[in-house]
């Protein structure tokens, strides 16, 4: 991760560090260090995974590598008919097999899945970077280890659910419909599938339109694990496929990760049935830097907060709030640090910032950045040269931002940071909370009591103190306010998939 890279020049003398502001070397370049994709075999086309069989879809769509714009494969588009088939297969598997199976046995399937994923981790990581554009260093060191860990963690819950909720005997819900985004394709699949299955539900999963390949490879892992037919069904497609799944009367629960706009549409669609739902939606996290913070570490935290995964992170630290006395210093250091980021080929092991996931998303980022400039915020970009082909956006910051600017209020979902300042902790907290979102936040200070004051006052579901963008299957994740409903991960995440 970015934080580790930063430490590479840590042995330099204090004098040099002082002169340069920051103890890393600039102006150097790295020789290409491409990760091999020899292990990855991408089929020409993929069908839908329904009832343990590969079923043709109504149409086909292409999936491309956003770093090269080359077509990787064609995948099936599930229409209402195929979604219906998948829901029926999931219902059958629920009634005939999964519901009746002792938790201990269910868990053993999930343990198998976790182990198989560990064995094939590199293959998955490379495919993830090819289909989605994220740097291999992240898919290899963050996404895949967490994917396996999520299955391993939840596997162990399957026979212990009676201990999870005092005074209650929780029951599974039935068929869960799950719709996941393109920013962490396989990790989001794991976040959704592992708890649902551990809690005794069967699933119909809809991967994102632009990143279907790792979910389809995951289906192979389920086959290898001998998971009973129909326990997991995977239907690829775009928004219409997701809508068909959300509106299907045979689904007992909907879990969605994606934009707040779509989340609200789903909440409305479920109004009549009152179906159980969990929503992980957008965010506009505030990242507070106090004047007593370890500034160099904080700068690494800022970089990790907003440039991790090209800023395609719902909990990205996209609003930087710096205490006035250190604002100039922090911004100066941040700019220098941004110049050292390696932007380019996602499969290069040195790459820090990969490709923007799609042309559409690139357009959205450009639109919001243009709006920021038009509204009078001051933009600055680092000087990397971008590859000719593919979708790219340079790490960008905005200074002189007003609270009402769109770059402060709206989720950009790209490598774009809006910077504001504050004087007192109260002002910092007020600005941090002045948003309809409430997913995450960050605080940097050396003072423990200040951390607790600020993290308790911030209205958000995940707070990172002197760190940022850390995830773990044991740790509940989810938002306040318009950032969503319910939690994923940890003890609290189980509630999403149980009748308590």
């Amino acid at each position, binding site marked *: 991760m970015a934080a580790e890279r930063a430490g590479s020049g840590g042995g330099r003398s204090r004098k040099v560090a002082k002169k340069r502001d920051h103890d890393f070397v600039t102006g150097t370049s790295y020789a290409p260090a491409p990760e091999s994709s020899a292990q990855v075999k991408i089929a020409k086309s993929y069908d839908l995974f329904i009832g343990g069989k590969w079923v043709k879809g109504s149409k086909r769509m292409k999936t491309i590598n956003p770093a090269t714009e080359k077509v990787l494969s064609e995948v099936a588009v599930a229409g209402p008919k195929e979604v219906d088939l998948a829901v029926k297969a999931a219902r059958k598997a629920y009634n005939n097999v999964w519901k009746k199976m002792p938790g201990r046995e269910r868990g053993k399937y999930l343990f198998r899945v976790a182990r198989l994923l560990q064995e094939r981790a590199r293959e998955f990581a490379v495919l993830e970077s090819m289909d989605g554009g994220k740097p291999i260093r992240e898919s290899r060191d963050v996404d895949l280890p967490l994917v396996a860990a999520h299955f391993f963690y939840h596997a162990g819950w399957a026979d212990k659910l009676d201990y999870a909720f005092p005074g209650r005997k929780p029951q599974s819900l039935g068929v869960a419909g799950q719709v996941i985004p393109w920013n962490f394709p396989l990790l989001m699949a794991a976040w959704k599938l592992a708890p649902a299955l551990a809690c005794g539900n069967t699933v119909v999963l809809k991967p994102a339109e632009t990143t279907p390949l790792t979910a389809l490879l995951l289906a192979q892992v389920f086959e290898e694990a001998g998971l009973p037919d129909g326990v997991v069904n995977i239907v690829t497609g775009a928004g219409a496929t997701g809508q068909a799944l959300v509106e299907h009367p045979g689904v007992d629960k909907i879990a969605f990760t994606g934009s707040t706009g779509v989340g609200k549409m789903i909440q409305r669609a479920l109004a009549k049935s009152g179906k159980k739902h969990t929503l992980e939606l957008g965010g506009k996290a505030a990242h507070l830097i106090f004047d007593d913070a370890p500034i160099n570490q904080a700068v690494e935290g800022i970089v990790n907060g907003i440039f991790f995964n090209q800023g395609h992170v719902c909990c990205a630290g996209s609003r930087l709030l710096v205490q006035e006395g250190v604002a100039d210093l922090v911004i100066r250091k941040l700019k220098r640090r941004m110049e050292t980021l390696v932007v380019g080929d996602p499969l290069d092991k040195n790459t820090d910032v990969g490709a923007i996931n799609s042309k559409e998303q690139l357009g959205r980022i450009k639109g919001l950045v243009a709006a920021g400039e038009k509204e009078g915020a001051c933009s600055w970009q680092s000087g990397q040269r971008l590859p000719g082909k593919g979708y790219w956006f340079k790490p960008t910051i905005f200074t002189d931002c007003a609270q009402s600017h769109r770059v402060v209020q709206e989720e950009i979902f790209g490598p774009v940071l809006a910077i504001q300042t504050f004087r007192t902790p109260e002002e910092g907290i007020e600005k941090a909370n002045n948003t309809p979102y409430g997913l995450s936040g960050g605080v940097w200070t050396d003072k423990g009591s200040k951390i607790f004051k600020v993290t308790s006052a911030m209205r958000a579901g*995940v*707070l990172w103190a002197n760190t940022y963008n*850390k995830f773990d299957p044991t740790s509940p994740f989810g938002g306040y306010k318009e950032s969503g409903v319910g939690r994923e991960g940890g003890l609290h995440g189980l509630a999403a998939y149980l009748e308590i």
Partner: protein
Amino acid sequence: MSRLSINKTYKLYIGGKFPRTESGRYYELTGKKGEFLANVSQGSKKDFRNAVVAARKAQGGWAKSSAYLKGQILYRVAEMLEGRSDQFVEELRMEGRTAAAARKEVETSIDLFVHYAGWSDKYPALFSSVNPVASSHFNFSNPEPTGVVAAVAPMSGLLGLCSVVAPIMVGGNASVVLASSERPLTAITFAEVLNSSDVPGGVVNLVTGFADELLPVMSSHMDVNALLLCSDDAKAAAGAREQGAENVKRVVVKPDAPLEESPYHVMDFQEIKTTWHPVGV
């Protein structure tokens, strides 16, 4: 000549004060034999919005007060209820209960507040976790109040009202509660209990009126974080859920009956916050 009794004017309870409805409207409440009981304020959308402002203002301070203090204040509510139990029995009888049923309902309501008073410093421990993450971090999750909660109380009267108010309140939320339109008298008398129990003004606000008029503004209000609807009307529930989506409101629908005592009703209006701290020197 016998003394002429003093009748109570039944008003709303907003921000710790007893205003009349800004709309000037009322509806007549009559007893079993059709006799006049009271002119009840028919609260308006504007009254509800005013109450949300009061609730928002009060919520932060209430959430911050210690669990011990919140517990004592809920216990104080029980004390005040006990002291005025005869008055509640009388009003419940006016609203149609038998003497025995009225007495039972008041006693159950008092005990319910004692029960929830005790949850104040216990549910956070029960529903918190220290999470054994793989990296070198101290990581924990704990419940925090959702914020401002709007509630439509069950029609059943005092017990229904208390069963809605207590779990929302003990969780550190501020509420705006629409009382039963059929049995509003005990609701306003209950407001007097709250007012004399050290409950800070605005933490609980009570509006009388009709759900079909007020539910749409309750479910669509952008500064209300959650809605509890005690109703058997599926259409009303669907409408509330749909309108609640505009600000991703947590909409909880329960049958039109008093809620049983449960910490899970407290948890319906809690958010789990997870905090990460690095471990190191």
